[in-house]
């Protein structure tokens, strides 16, 4: 039995948040601080002929006006590819590009200075659709062509598979731009420090990525760039590249003026500049036997990467390797393109390439079941992966329990599937229906890159414990998870465990907090650190007692002679001159992906999820109301079941927005959305009852058996709703969002630029 792990321990960071004491980035100020503002592009694609900052510089109270010319180091930043300018020079590629920045004594002056900067443009033809951008004669967004990345999967012989099939169906699906909609807009404060470097406070999701890029821009050693992460007021993958650019600008201004500089985006600036979730076009071809067996699957995807690569290479890779869903398919062919356009750029967002692919594959599975006259669940259970099966990329699932059937069955029962399929309720104009979607999802980074994390645990002489971790708390609860793991593994009361802010100068680089990996790699690293400390403490006890053997059991330190509490044991270790800090490292098991051949084992383990939606459709207005959702997620082990349920509620709500409400509309590169008045995220009146079901099949490789949860919760509801709408109305919707127009007309209406 565990004392802290697998229990609904209260969040360690919540007290400061309910009392208003938590200091978010915009809450931080320093004496002598200046206010910065950024001038952004006026066209989605244009040559910059001239930038004149002379007038702006003359305005009283303006302390610096900078452009790309003021950058001492690299003018470009990027997570994968260095292609995004801190300030555009020569050319702007999207409407959010920064051209210049100002630092002034107050915000009003900074804004006035911005409007005094003159920029001459020569407008260039732009390209605003990924498939247009793939054509030879399309305008080039970057010199080296519009293809950011190409990925494939090849297994078996798909042509042979289609020949063997009794039935082949081909469908096209489309998804939209959406905005992360973290409630806290981006903010940083940069200040020059006396070691010849810069300190940056900000709501930066991946501080080490930012540190590396800012150092490059400033031409400084990484060691001279210190990033201190403030609590993130939401991120969902969204406070990465955009924060790097903002941090770099603030740092440049601070070094130029020798004073602290605060940069804060208004909501309008945030929406204009920040990256979005990728819109996809997905074309699927599915070969089936009459009895419902899937024999072949072919998929083509084009993802709109917008103006910069950002994480597009990785996002599209996940879509590619998960394109066939959690099904046994002998013949598979997938081709995916990530493409530059002059639209807002796209990058990481909770789900990371899976919400798009899942909308397609899970709609398609329903369409297939319908063609065959099968129940959608029966069809899924028939084709779904089981223990020992091979995935669409040729990976044999042998090291963990394949939990697909379990989550589907749990959801089926919770939503009352059999009954609702037969008698969904509703009357003439108001129809009701129920639908399901399921998925498997590779945990952590997979073959994207080195998957390693380090956590330092330090015991002070009063037996209090501190944790230094480079893993980001953005609401998901990693701080609490780490405190639970450490309290469990050291036998220290959790009240005596403190987590310090994520500060790049003090914590080991643990890679980005993405891919729902923090609990696995952070938990694993914290565990490893605790194990090291335990060895040291037990060694001291052995010496103290002259014992043969010392061990840790049920939170107590033991020798064959004595029992010690954590505090007593620590007292002895300190008296005996033992160093009580340790860094633990965790590395995920090795995997192999052959990008050339398009086959391999992309992830070391997978999680399984299923969600069912019971919906009501007003056939006279197209308004859809989700009445109830059941969501079952296999997580390995839930370190904190309360927080795990919280992830389900939040992920479901966000996915409801993706399915029904949200689109960041862009017309010819110009966003039509400026603020939350025309971008509707779900409110408390839109979110239905949610039945959360946590399925625990501990994984041999995760800490305490834990795997992932944050993203899987957000990748299923849109297709479940589409399938429920089909059940309710007989209308198949293949494009998101399923808003009023889409549901009523079955097609999208596009508003035009005013």
């Amino acid at each position, binding site marked *: 039995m565990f004392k802290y792990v697998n229990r609904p321990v209260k969040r360690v960071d919540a*007290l400061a948040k*309910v009392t*208003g004491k938590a200091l978010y980035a915009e809450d931080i100020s320093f004496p002598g601080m200046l206010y910065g503002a950024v001038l952004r592009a006026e066209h989605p694609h244009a040559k910059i002929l001239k930038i004149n900052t002379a007038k702006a510089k003359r305005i009283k109270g303006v302390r610096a006006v900078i452009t790309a010319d003021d950058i001492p180091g690299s003018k470009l930043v990027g997570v994968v590819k260095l292609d995004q300018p801190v300030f555009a020079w020569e050319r702007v590629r999207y409407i959010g590009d920064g051209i210049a920045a100002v630092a002034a004594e107050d915000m009003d002056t900074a804004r006035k200075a911005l409007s005094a900067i003159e920029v001459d443009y020569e407008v260039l033809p732009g390209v605003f659709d990924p498939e247009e951008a793939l054509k030879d004669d399309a305008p080039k967004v970057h010199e080296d062509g519009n293809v950011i990345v190409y990925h494939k999967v090849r297994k078996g012989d798909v042509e042979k598979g289609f020949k063997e099939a009794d039935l082949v169906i081909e469908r096209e699906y489309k998804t939209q731009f959406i905005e992360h909609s973290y409630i*806290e807009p981006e903010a940083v404060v940069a200040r020059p420090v006396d070691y010849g470097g810069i300190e940056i406070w900000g709501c930066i999701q991946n501080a080490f990525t930012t540190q590396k890029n800012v150092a490059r821009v400033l031409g400084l050693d990484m060691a001279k760039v210190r990033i201190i992460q403030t609590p993130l007021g939401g991120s*969902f993958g969204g406070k990465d590249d955009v924060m790097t650019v903002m941090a770099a600008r603030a740092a440049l201004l601070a070094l130029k003026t020798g004073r602290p500089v605060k940069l804060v985006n208004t*909501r309008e600036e945030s929406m204009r500049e920040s990256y979005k979730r990728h819109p996809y076009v997905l074309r699927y071809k599915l070969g089936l036997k009459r009895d419902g067996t899937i024999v072949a699957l072919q998929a083509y995807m084009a993802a709109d990467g917008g103006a910069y690569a950002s994480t597009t290479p990785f996002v599209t890779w996940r879509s590619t390797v998960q394109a066939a869903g959690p099904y046994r398919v002998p013949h598979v062919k997938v081709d995916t393109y990530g493409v530059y356009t002059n639209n807002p750029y796209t990058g990481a967002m909770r789900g990371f390439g899976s919400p798009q692919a899942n909308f397609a594959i899970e709609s398609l599975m329903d369409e297939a079941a319908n063609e065959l006259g099968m129940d959608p669940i029966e069809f899924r259970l028939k084709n779904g992966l089981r223990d020992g099966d091979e995935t669409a990329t040729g990976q044999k699932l042998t090291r963990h329990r394949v939990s697909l059937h379990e989550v589907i069955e749990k959801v089926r029962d919770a939503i009352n599937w059999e009954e609702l399929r037969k008698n969904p309720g509703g009357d003439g104009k108001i129809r009701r229906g129920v639908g399901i979607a399921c998925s498997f999802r590779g945990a952590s980074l997979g073959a994207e890159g080195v998957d390693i994390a380090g956590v330092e645990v330090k015991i002070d002489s009063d037996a209090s414990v501190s944790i230094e971790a480079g893993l980001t708390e953005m*609401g998901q609860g990693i701080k609490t998870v780490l405190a639970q793991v450490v309290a469990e593994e050291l036998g220290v009361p959790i009240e005596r465990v403190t987590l310090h802010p994520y500060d790049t100068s003090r914590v080991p680089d643990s890679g980005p907090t993405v891919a729902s990996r923090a609990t696995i790699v952070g938990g694993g690293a914290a565990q490893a650190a605790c194990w090291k400390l335990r060895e040291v403490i037990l060694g001291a006890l052995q010496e103290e007692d002259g014992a043969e053997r010392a061990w840790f059991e049920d939170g107590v330190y033991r020798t064959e002679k004595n029992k010690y509490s954590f505090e007593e044991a620590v007292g002895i270790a300190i008296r005996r001159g033992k160093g009580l800090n340790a860094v633990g490292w965790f590395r995920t098991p090795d995997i192999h992906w052959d990008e050339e051949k398009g086959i391999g084992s992309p992830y070391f383990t997978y999680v399984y999820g299923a969600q069912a939606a019971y919906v009501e459709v007003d056939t006279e207005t197209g308004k859809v109301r989700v009445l109830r959702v059941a969501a079952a997620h296999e997580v390995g082990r839930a370190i904190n079941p309360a*927080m795990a349920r919280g992830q389900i509620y939040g992920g479901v709500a966000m996915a409801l927005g993706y399915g029904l409400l949200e689109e960041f509309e862009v017309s010819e590169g110009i966003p039509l959305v400026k*603020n939350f008045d025309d971008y509707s995220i779900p*409110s408390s009146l839109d979110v239905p009852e949610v039945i959360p079901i946590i399925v625990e099949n501990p994984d041999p490789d995760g800490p305490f058996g834990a795997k992932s949860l944050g993203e899987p919760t957000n990748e299923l509801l849109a297709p479940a709703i589409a399938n429920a709408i089909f059940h309710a109305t007989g209308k198949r919707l293949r494009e998101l969002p399923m808003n009023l127009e889409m549901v009523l007309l079955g097609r999208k209406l596009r508003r035009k630029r005013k």
Partner: protein
Amino acid sequence: MKKLTVNFTVNGERVRLRVPANRTLLDILREDLGLTGTKRGCDTGECGACTVLMNGRSVNSCLVLAGEVEGAEIITVEGLGGEEALHPLQEAFLEEDAVQCGFCIPGMLMSAKYLLDRNPDPSEEEIREAISGNLCRCTGYIPIIRAIKRAALKLKERK
């Protein structure tokens, strides 16, 4: 632009300030008074992160001009309760795991207080309605709704 002198109370304390008239109550709280618990999310009354009570009513402080504050009684999250003496709402938010990133929470708490001040025994529907002007992107609202229900019970028990 003339400056204004405004007299009002914040969390029971009297305040006298001289400020430019184009400041909003949100600016005054955050920048002039250092009460950064009240959050800025959209500046247009769409997100509810800056919700405070003004003369007992919930308002978006981003949509209150400095001059309007004259004579008003303002309550912010800092006035709800500190660490030593948490308000039942704050306790309930902790107990129900209603906080994730936390950015919407100060505003959410003030909307919840406004509800419970008028309606000590709200139904789930009434709670949903009461916080429908406060956007949250993390929690799906469900734990928040539960927390408000729990707080209502706590308040009843204390009476």
